């Protein structure tokens, strides 16, 4: 076979064409490879290199038996790429999103019309909503997963746990107070991605691992908390109170076993809750304690050796004048022993004891019992209460302060003062965070249970326990009695200061009860406060039953069984 030869002119044309092509390619290669070298390398790096953020997992909050009180779970969030959307697509997408995600049309139109590559449509949606979005099969609307805080017991301990904002940052309660431990530290990795945008793990260049948040272990016991909340909630509703708070504490260590406030809320849905419901009233609300404060006056007088419990005090038949004021007792008494002054809660008897003690000494004991300063509990928002220095006392102050007026306290301070009597005279520091451990269980922080100072002698404390036992057995605190268990306590019914600050209200009261059990070896102390209970308002009537109801279940749980006799 003979090959055809191309005519020389055609050969020349093809040859020239190839030469031109070759020149163009060479120039282009030179341009890309040399002149635009830096730019292209940078472009390629951006296209292939990939920085993946590794979000840290927020730590758990656990009760003392490691029951989960707060955890973080992945939930779907919806985002869009508005720049990819045409006007027509946007118009079609808005009604679908509106219906699926229950969002307003103006909101969606505003979000989708922005010239952005990423915009949140709705965060932390339900799995069902996410599934419906997935079914839309719209490439401009996608789903990613974010951590959201969940509280399995919903309202339980909510005023203490607090909650997190949409970005998972603690903004209330323990979530806020322990943010540094719980939040952890984000990590990242530099890696390459393939043509499909997938990460190529084999080409991982550098990894800085995330440090997950530590777990916070509380001193609170889930069961005791439940019982306390149930009893307090019942009283709060029954007596139509404006607010209620209670705390259960170990008198030896200061460990908080349960702490509750009403009104309350569900930590899973904190959005529309008014600030009053969010307060942890045990530490944020101060009140004039009224008669429960008499334990401080009595302890001080007995500790100073000014009185013996059998000494008799003239209670003036129910009316006694101090400077320009008259003090009254609920019932008219003439002679009462020191013990009976407390048992029957005589204002006149208490004031006469305080007069014997003197204002300076009384003030010193009040301070030693820890009033007028924060207890130092590891919860945010604690207030200190208020007690004036004796130099600023008026002529009537000595007739008011010994019976719990002109002094403001928190329920926690009252519980701590009760613990002084229960534990033999020592002031403890209340603790709610027992331990902080990292995710591998390594101890990071451990609470130190410490006694701050000796307030009264062990003998005085024992005498006071005996008196407070009598208060429950035959005095104003009979409704705190528990069959088969010895209980000590003191009731308080304090008039609230009028809103115009002109004297005390005759219709608004703070009803309270402080107590401990069993008297011989107190395992727990408790303070209960009801704000504006009605129609009944006596502490012995509205607050003492909360103590009895709680303790009758809590004591057997703690191994204190009622005597069969």
């Amino acid at each position: 076979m003979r090959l055809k030869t191309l005519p020389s002119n055609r050969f020349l044309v093809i040859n020239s064409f190839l030469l031109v092509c070759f020149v163009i390619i060479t120039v282009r290669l030179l341009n890309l490879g040399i002149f635009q070298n830096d730019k292209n390398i940078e472009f390629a790096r951006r296209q292939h290199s990939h920085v993946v953020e590794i979000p840290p997992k927020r730590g758990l909050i656990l009760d003392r038996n490691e029951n989960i009180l707060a955890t973080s779970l992945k939930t779907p969030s919806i985002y869009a790429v508005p720049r990819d959307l045409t006007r027509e697509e946007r118009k079609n997408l808005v009604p679908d999103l509106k219906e699926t995600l229950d969002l307003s049309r103006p909101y969606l139109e505003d979000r989708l019309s922005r010239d952005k590559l990423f915009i949140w449509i709705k965060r932390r949606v339900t799995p069902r909503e996410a599934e419906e979005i997935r079914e839309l099969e719209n490439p401009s609307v996608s789903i990613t997963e974010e951590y959201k805080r969940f509280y399995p017991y919903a309202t339980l301990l909510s005023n203490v746990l607090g909650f997190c904002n949409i970005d998972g940052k603690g903004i209330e309660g323990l979530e806020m107070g322990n943010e540094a431990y719980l939040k952890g530290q984000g990590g990242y990795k530099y890696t390459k991605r393939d043509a499909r945008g997938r990460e190529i793990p084999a080409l991982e260049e550098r990894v800085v691992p995330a440090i997950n948040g530590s777990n916070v272990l509380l001193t609170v016991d889930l069961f005791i908390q439940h019982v306390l909340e149930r009893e307090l909630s019942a009283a709060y509703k029954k007596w139509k109170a404006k607010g209620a708070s209670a705390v259960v504490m170990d008198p030896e260590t200061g460990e908080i076993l349960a702490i509750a406030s009403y009104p309350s809320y569900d930590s899973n849905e904190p959005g529309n809750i008014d600030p009053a419901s969010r307060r942890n009233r045990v530490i944020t609300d101060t009140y004039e304690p009224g008669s429960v404060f008499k334990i401080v006056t009595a302890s001080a007088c007995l500790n100073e050796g000014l009185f013996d419990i059998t000494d008799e005090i003239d209670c003036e038949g129910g009316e006694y004048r101090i400077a320009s004021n008259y003090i009254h007792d609920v019932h008219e008494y003439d002679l009462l022993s020191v013990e009976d002054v407390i048992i029957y809660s005589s204002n006149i008897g208490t004031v006469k004891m305080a007069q014997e003690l003197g204002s300076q000494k009384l003030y010193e004991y009040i301070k030693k019992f820890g009033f007028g300063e924060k207890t130092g509990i590891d919860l945010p928002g604690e207030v200190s209460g208020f007690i004036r220095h004796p130099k600023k006392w008026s002529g009537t102050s000595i007739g008011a302060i010994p019976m719990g007026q002109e002094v403001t306290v928190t329920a926690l301070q009252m519980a701590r003062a009760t613990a002084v009597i229960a534990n033999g005279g020592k002031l403890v520091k209340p603790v709610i965070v027992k331990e902080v451990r990292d995710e591998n269980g390594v101890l990071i922080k451990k609470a130190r249970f410490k006694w701050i100072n000796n307030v009264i002698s062990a003998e005085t404390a024992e005498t006071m326990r005996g008196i407070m036992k009598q208060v429950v057995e035959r005095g104003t605190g009979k409704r705190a009695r528990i069959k088969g268990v010895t209980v000590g306590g003191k009731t308080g019914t304090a008039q609230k200061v009028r809103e115009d600050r002109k004297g005390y209200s005759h219709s608004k009261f703070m009803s309270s009860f402080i107590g401990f059990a069993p008297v011989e070896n107190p395992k727990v102390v408790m303070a209960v406060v009801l704000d504006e209970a009605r129609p009944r308002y006596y502490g012995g009537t509205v607050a003492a039953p909360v103590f009895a109801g709680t303790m009758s279940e809590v004591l057997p749980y703690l191994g204190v069984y009622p005597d069969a006799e």
Partner: protein
Amino acid sequence: MRATVKYLIPIAIVIVGMLLYVMLQVNAYRISYEIRQNESKLSKVSEENKKLRFDIARLKNPERIEEILTRKDISLEMPHDINQVTFVLPKKVLLHGIEMNQKPSFFNLFGLVKEAQAKVAEDM
């Protein structure tokens, strides 16, 4: 011919080496993808585990349990009187009239005697 082979052998070795290298690279990539897939699965399973733990916690909520008990009218209440019974183990135990030796023996080390007693107890 011999000279050609002399050149071809090193070229073949180089080519085989390069192919081996490529194969290893491809496998490394493939395995790394698999590792990542498994990591992703592990993460999903761990997340599922966390969700289940959360569900358990929710189901264990004492408030919820009390509500169910109230609804079903199971009026449970705290025992009023608690009797404490102390058991004092006798030195000799009689089972079916047979005296069982409580003294430690060689066979006790392997739990044989315990097992035998348990079987007797089951028969009762």
